[in-house]
């Protein structure tokens, strides 16, 4: 077997050194009743060619996003990633190293994390950022639990514009930890309803901008209301490219900003692995979850980097840790940092402007389709529309023309009563031809009487 270097002679010789007659002797502590004598009922080993054949056949049964006009967003976005990014993250020294517990031989990973933290702090307009989380949704749940540690209050108010998967994840995890989660009703301009719900028991308010319907909101007033009540404002962003154009969460008064960083450097990957961004005000740093990388010096006084403030973490604090998190999303964070280094200030701003421009073109085209109503007043690169009839059925119908028209809101939350709402995103990968094909296909499928066919 190609991954196993030992030869039969090696094994025999090694057993001799150990002083055991057979390998079975080494498993003597396993209760006899649990020792499998036969192989399990699974196929036997396969060569590289055979495995590649099987998995390629599976891959070929999927319709890749890039295979034609494609408008899905809702928390994951198709962007162009420069070839350099994937080349560097496959270098052995990055791909096959462990968490940088031995800083003397992990400065590559550590310096990248320090650069990552600096980039995330700059994007979010906050002072400190951690070395990444699993993804945006778990970062959101962690932020809510952090607000409990900071305020010693139990109630979290989630805006109806928060991505339903983020809300469900937060509800599952933070509720288990003992918090009271208040989910507001889904609505396009849901942020307007948040302030009225804030009270003296509120630990945090969670708002998303651009929200799940694509609406961009200035949350400054929500921040003021939250702070006046002694609560924290958590601002969620699922499209990190938006930071290149829009006011940052920090500028608008956020105490914690979390985001899905997939858009920068990472492929769609059918939902994972992604990279969660997490930033906060400096005074809150000791309540932060996750790994942190900090600057220090070595024995010769040279600048270097180490994992730090680990007294917050599970391997030191055990049941008193700020989180049970052990892993971050290191390689995805590396991809994020390399892509953002290639973009730079100039490139990110241009990329963001380009995304917005494509979405404006999309909006214009959709507005011209009879029966389609634009719901999102202010957007970055994503918008919600109302279609006649069921949006999911319309998406299936349009698929016959080779167009993936977007995400029906009902896919995210079937109970919201928004079955006629469709979410569409455009990025720099979206062409004018794509938009024209979408508009034509929608116009064909939306019949004059207003039913999707």
């Amino acid at each position, binding site marked *: 077997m190609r*991954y196993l270097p*030992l030869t039969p002679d090696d094994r025999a010789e090694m057993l001799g050194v150990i002083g055991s007659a057979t390998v079975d002797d080494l498993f003597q502590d396993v209760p006899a009743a649990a020792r499998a004598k036969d192989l399990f009922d699974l196929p036997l080993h396969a060569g590289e060619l055979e495995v590649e054949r099987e998995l390629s056949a599976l891959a070929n049964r999927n319709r890749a996003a*890039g295979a034609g006009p494609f408008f899905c967003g809702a928390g994951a976005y198709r962007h162009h990633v420069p070839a350099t990014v994937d080349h560097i993250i496959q270098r052995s020294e990055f791909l096959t190293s462990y968490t940088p517990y031995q800083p*003397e*031989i992990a400065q590559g990973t550590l310096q990248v994390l320090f650069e990552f933290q600096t980039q995330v702090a700059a994007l979010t307009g906050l002072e400190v950022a951690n070395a990444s989380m699993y993804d945006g949704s778990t970062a959101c749940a962690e932020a809510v639990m952090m607000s409990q540690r900071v305020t010693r209050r139990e109630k979290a108010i989630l805006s109806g514009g928060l991505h339903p998967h983020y809300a469900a994840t937060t509800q599952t995890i933070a509720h288990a930890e003992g918090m009271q989660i208040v989910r507001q009703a889904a609505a396009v301009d849901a942020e307007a309803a948040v302030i009225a719900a804030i009270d003296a028991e509120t630990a945090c308010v969670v708002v998303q901008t651009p929200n799940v319907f694509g609406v961009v909101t200035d949350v400054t007033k929500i921040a003021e209301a939250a702070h006046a009540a002694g609560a924290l404002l958590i601002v969620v962003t699922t499209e990190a490219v938006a930071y290149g154009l829009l006011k940052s969460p920090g500028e608008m008064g956020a105490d914690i900003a979390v985001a899905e960083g997939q858009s920068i450097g990472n492929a769609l990957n059918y939902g*994972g692995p992604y990279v969660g961004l997490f930033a906060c005000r400096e005074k809150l740093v000791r309540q932060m979850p996750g790994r942190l990388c900090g600057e220090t010096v070595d024995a010769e006084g040279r600048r270097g980097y180490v994992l730090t403030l680990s007294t917050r973490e*599970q391997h030191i604090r055990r049941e008193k840790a700020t989180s049970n998190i052990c892993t971050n999303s290191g390689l995805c964070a590396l991809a994020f940092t390399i892509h953002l280094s290639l973009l730079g*200030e100039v490139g990110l701003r241009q990329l963001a402007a380009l995304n917005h421009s494509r979405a404006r073109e999309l909006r214009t085209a959709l507005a011209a389709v009879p029966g389609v109503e634009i719901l999102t007043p202010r957007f970055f690169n994503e918008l919600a529309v109302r279609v006649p009839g069921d949006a999911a059925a319309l998406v299936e119908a349009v698929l016959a023309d080779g167009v993936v028209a977007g995400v029906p809101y009902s896919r995210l939350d*079937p109970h919201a009563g928004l079955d006629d709402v469709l979410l569409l995103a455009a990025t720099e990968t979206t062409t004018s031809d794509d938009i024209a094909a979408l508009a034509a296909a929608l116009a064909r499928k939306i019949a004059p009487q207003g039913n999707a066919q």
Partner: protein
Amino acid sequence: MSIVNVGRPTRPDSVLAESHASLTGGRGLLQDEPLLFELGGWDKTGVDLDAPAEDAADLGDLVRAGPIGLAGLSEPEAVRHYVRLSQKNHAIDLALYPLGSCTMKHNPRLNEKLARLAGFADLHPLQPQSTTQGALELMDRLAHWLKTLTGMPAVALSPKAGAHGELCGLLAIKAAHEAAGHGARRRVLVPTSAHGTNPATAAFVGYSVTEIAQTPDGRVDIADLAAKLAPDVAAIMVTNPNTCGLFERDIIEIARLTHEAGAYFYCDGANFNAIVGRVRPGDLGVDAMHINLHKTFSTPHGGGGPGAGPVVLSAALAPFAPAPWVVHGEAGLHLVEEAIEEAGQAFGRMCAFHGQMGMFVRAYAYMRSHGADGLRQVAEDAVLNANYIKARLSDVMSPAFPDGPCMHEALFDDTWLEGTGVTTLDFAKAMIDEGFHPMTMYFPLVVHGAMLIEPTETESKRELDRFCEALRALAAAAKAGDAERFKGAPYLAPMRRLDETLAARKPKLTWRPEPDAPSAAA
């Protein structure tokens, strides 16, 4: 003598200064590399983008006014920056990486290639399910392999890492107790040797933690366990093989006692690689166990993630599994994404979307490559390699549990360093100068000055011997009084020992411009 000996000398002069410093401060190919932000690219970019056709005037004052503060690099500069940084890292591709409990095994490149196929990598989690049947089929096959290898009836694929899997398992247990009206069970029993994530996870879901004592031979003290299995205990969390690298001989009895007390048995599956293909946790009485795909099934650790932590569940816990999961429907495979109606008692959702698909592809490719026969050999070779190291080092170092075989990792304590003035940390740092990553140190906590060595099955006998020779030489140096070699180590790494106290006392977590330096804000 070389046969090509014309013109210039092919052998270096042996004259070398005692301590040779370069004129510019670097060490040959290993150069100090500034931070991205110090390379000066405030107006530079390494991408060529089209100019936007429409402006952002419609957004008014929602647009960011000031600079962001990002630095950019041209493509050649970016490549050089990150390649230089990469060379400061140790990696499993360079040498044995014996971090006990972390399982640093070879990462097959076939897996990387397959995960990058457009049909997997360029697939959106919310595109119509009719267009992702191949992806759902892969998830279904992965689930089948995991269930078969563990002997468990159900698996939740979505947890994103081992600790996230632990959380998933405990949430399923909590939901099961609540459904049965046993919400008063508030305590979780955890052995003193457990991973830190176990008590952290238990506390996370609102349980209090009680420690179970350990026997002198490194196993759960079953009498102590029995005494503590009170009616308020919700679950036990036991790692098996445990963090001392030993199989819990009484595991079936532990499960029986746990179930008799109305509690569930959560098994930390971090060490499943020691028994895969030979022992099914389902046959041991386990109710829930996470599987670190980045340990047992070879997905790369990537300098700290991404991991993947699917959780296998017993029949009692299966109904409470979180969304989503794959079912066979009339129109092919179907992903159940909504926890409320279709899924009955599901406890909720662990994350957005469906889990670490990129890792599923890699892990499945690894399983298919090994097959039922190869996976069994994986466990055997992993255990053989660890016992070989234990046998080769036991006369110079002190094994924590000398009697009987270990499983996939060999645990030593620091008794053998007594009187040398060398600590476990010093010894580990000196290993770096010999070209090896240190073993796991000071864990498990139950063994003084612990050194936990896990070679994995992907090491050749030659590399194991090279490693053992290096450790034997170091051990001899320590005992011969050469403490200086250890106290200052490492000497030959990219950096000397770093001041972690300073880092924690005055945390500097981001780069900030010097007051006078040019920056984006200037």
